[in-house]
């Protein structure tokens, strides 16, 4: 009887301790946005943060097909948008690979133990994306070109 | 007629486990090779943008067509009611599934992204012969397993004929499909002919039967089961017929190509000045895989000895691999003719290949992956006959077909 009781107490202690540690971890979870990234200076992601945490891949995948088959680029949910906003920078201002250890994508994916394939092929730092932005505006034919938003794209 | 009794393979444990260990070793090495190629990328193989399918495909296609050919023995018994072939049917079905699994494994492990196999299984483009083949292959495995069930289970016996007939038709479709993978490629001179489909069908007859006979001889030898001379004669005559048919279709294939003047260059390449590919064609495909086995099979003395018939079977298998090498790799090495009447004197950067024969030398990982597939097929067969009743107790003539032995007596 006493043994059962002491086991129960132990169990209770353990669960409280675990609960606490879970809470401590929980606070850490939100901190994957890199302070040096553009995202840190923005109030919100393209959708509410909580929604993005759970559903970002659905959005990216949907946009992926829009881009590949429909040629719609530079849209709200494009992967290149994710990278350019969430990429961190070192003290020299050099972008850090977004899938590198401790950076935005991988730190959460490591924590959640979810495999990530995007960067097998996609650029991990904004690189040469300028075509969608500034250079395109210069190059575009004066007539018939869609009005392009001038932006401060990297490079 | 005597009831046919099937027994598990009763080879001594040391021999059985030794065989299994050896095959497991071959498979492990093949698996490691696949992992290595996967990790490094295909640059470690001999494959390039010119020769895009290499040695793994030689093995994979060979195993897949041999799989459908191995089922023939069962079909002859069930579909064409040749009683003498009935005892051979179970092993035939097992071997068909085993060879198919081995071949498909090699094919899948050579993909650029084998991790996306699920994509291949869920996203189909029905204008692709390749997509159809995915159905043909998986359907074949399912049907043959069902076919085996009708043979083994008394309750299913009455279904044996319809299921067996369906399996037979399906295997014809399968090999036609495999041949069509190559036959419908308009951009390459050596392919682009519908005769590749029937050529592949007769090749499957020959290679499947040759492998079947080798496995049968080995398994029966190992635990001392008898094979009667009439049975031996029946099998070797069948093999002779199939090998002759392969040679005939090979002849027609080249005649078709030779008749059109535009194909004279590819024919000269394959038949006269293609170096290794020409040698493999004449020595491998025609001589080793065709004429020598025929010589043995129709030799009045040699064709009564099991060892010589086994040798003929082994030569057919070797010739088959050579034929696959010529069909798959030789045809890719030959330059695609885009500019008739012109010579290509420069094609991109210096190592980039166009307008001349593309170099290809198989790398070890490719070869080991291919052999791994063979290992898988043999392992499945070995385990299958050991744990289940696939092998008839005896193929002695009086047990198989009493009328036949009565005639001989």
């Amino acid at each position, binding site marked *: 009887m006493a043994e059962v009781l002491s086991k129960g107490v132990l169990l209770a202690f353990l669960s409280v301790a675990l609960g606490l540690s879970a809470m401590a971890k929980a606070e850490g979870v939100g901190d994957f946005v890199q302070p040096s990234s553009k995202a840190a200076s923005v*109030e919100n992601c393209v959708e509410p943060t909580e929604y993005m945490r759970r559903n970002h891949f659905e959005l990216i995948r949907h946009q992926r097909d829009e881009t590949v088959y429909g040629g719609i680029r530079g849209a709200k949910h494009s992967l290149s948008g994710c990278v350019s906003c969430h990429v961190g920078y070192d003290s020299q201002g050099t972008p850090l690979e977004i899938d590198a250890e401790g950076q935005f994508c991988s730190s959460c994916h490591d924590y959640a133990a979810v495999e990530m394939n995007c960067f097998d092929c*996609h650029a991990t730092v904004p690189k040469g994306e300028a075509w969608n932005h500034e250079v*395109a505006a210069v190059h575009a034919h004066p007539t018939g070109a869609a009005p392009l938003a001038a932006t401060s*794209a990297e490079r | 007629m005597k009831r046919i009794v099937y027994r598990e393979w009763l080879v001594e444990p040391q021999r059985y486990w030794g065989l299994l260990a050896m095959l497991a070793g071959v498979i492990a090495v093949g698996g490691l090779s696949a992992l290595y190629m996967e990790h490094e990328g295909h640059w470690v193989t001999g494959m390039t943008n010119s020769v895009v399918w290499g040695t793994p495909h030689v093995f994979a296609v060979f195993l897949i067509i041999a799989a459908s050919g191995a089922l023939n023995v069962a079909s002859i018994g069930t579909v064409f009611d040749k009683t003498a072939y009935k005892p051979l049917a179970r092993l035939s079905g097992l071997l068909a599934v085993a060879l198919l699994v081995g071949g498909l494994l090699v094919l899948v492990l050579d993909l650029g992204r084998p991790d996306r196999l699920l994509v291949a299984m869920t996203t189909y483009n029905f*204008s692709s012969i390749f997509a159809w083949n995915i159905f043909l292959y998986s359907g074949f495995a399912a049907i043959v397993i069902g076919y085996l069930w009708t043979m083994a289970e008394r309750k299913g016996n009455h279904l044996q004929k319809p299921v067996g007939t369906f399996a037979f038709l399906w295997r014809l479709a399968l090999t036609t499909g495999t041949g069509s993978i190559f036959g419908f490629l*308009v951009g390459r001179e050596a392919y682009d002919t519908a005769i590749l489909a029937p050529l592949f069908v007769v090749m499957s007859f020959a290679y499947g039967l040759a492998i079947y006979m080798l496995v049968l001889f080995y398994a029966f030898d190992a635990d001392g089961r008898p094979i009667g001379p009439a049975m031996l004669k029946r099998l070797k005559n069948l093999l002779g017929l199939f090998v002759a048919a392969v040679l005939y279709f090979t002849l027609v294939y080249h005649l078709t190509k030779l008749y059109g003047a535009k194909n004279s260059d590819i024919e000269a390449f394959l038949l006269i000045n293609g170096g290794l590919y020409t040698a493999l064609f004449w020595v491998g495909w025609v001589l080793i895989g065709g004429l020598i086995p025929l010589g043995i099979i129709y030799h009045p003395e040699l064709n009564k000895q099991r060892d010589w018939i086994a040798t003929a079977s082994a030569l057919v298998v070797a010739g088959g691999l050579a034929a696959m090498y010529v069909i798959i790799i030789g045809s890719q090495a030959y330059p695609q003719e885009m500019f008739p009447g012109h010579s290509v004197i420069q094609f991109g950067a210096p190592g980039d290949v166009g307008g001349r024969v593309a170099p290809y030398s198989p790398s070890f990982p490719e070869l080991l992956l291919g052999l791994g597939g063979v290992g898988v097929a043999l392992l499945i067969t070995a385990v299958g006959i050991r744990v289940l009743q696939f092998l008839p107790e005896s193929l002695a003539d009086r047990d198989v077909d009493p009328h036949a032995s009565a005639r001989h007596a």
Partner: protein
Amino acid sequence: MKNESEPTNQGRRDFLGAAAGLTAAAVAPGMMLHTVDSEAAAPTGGVSDAHRWGLLVDTSKCADGCTACVDACDQENGLNLQSQPLGDDELKWQNQRATWIRKVKLQDNLTGQVTNLPLMCQHCEHPPCVDVCPTGASFKRADGIVMVDRHTCIGCRYCMMACPYKARSFIHEQVDQKLTRAPRGKGCVESCNLCAHRLDTGDISTACADACSAEGHQALVFGDLKDPTGPLRQALAKKPNRQIRQDLGLNTGVRYAGI
């Protein structure tokens, strides 16, 4: 144990959700001006079958020894970022690296006349590569551009077997350096996409044609095959031209004059 932590977990989620909601509400007025989406480029219009993009190559203007189009393509599509794997043979590597456009030099067997031309994906109306692809990864966009959806490409290379123009490349090695506009990864097949990223942003041009003009050769005219008054149709009307392997009836989007 799991039961114990579950409510905590749920509580955490609710808390975070509420917090996010509160934050959103608090900053809602300012958020409109401050979300990422206002900073990104406007989404582009999308592909339509009102256009069919194509090229005319005037081989008489294509200069011997000039590789401007090839170099421009390499730059534009990040092909120059590929690196030869350590230990790979130099010549073999040239046959393994991705190449979207190559200079081809021909000699007439009868007259000995030499012709230069760039060869790339011909953007067929009836592309064999699309027919054979088991997963449908090889596809033709509404505007006629033939390309590979590398998200569903399994790397079987059947399209490379089927292509009559040797236009496609398989990525044989690990790729470390890539451009945002030109993703690239080991184990997939790719080929010329007529600089789709330019077209999608409303820039009616390709790197190769631009480079050829910049060199002063004007051997490449890019444009819309469906626009009777456009530069491409005008150029096609002026010069007799044909398709490579016209016998196959693929109705290519790339046409050649002078072969």
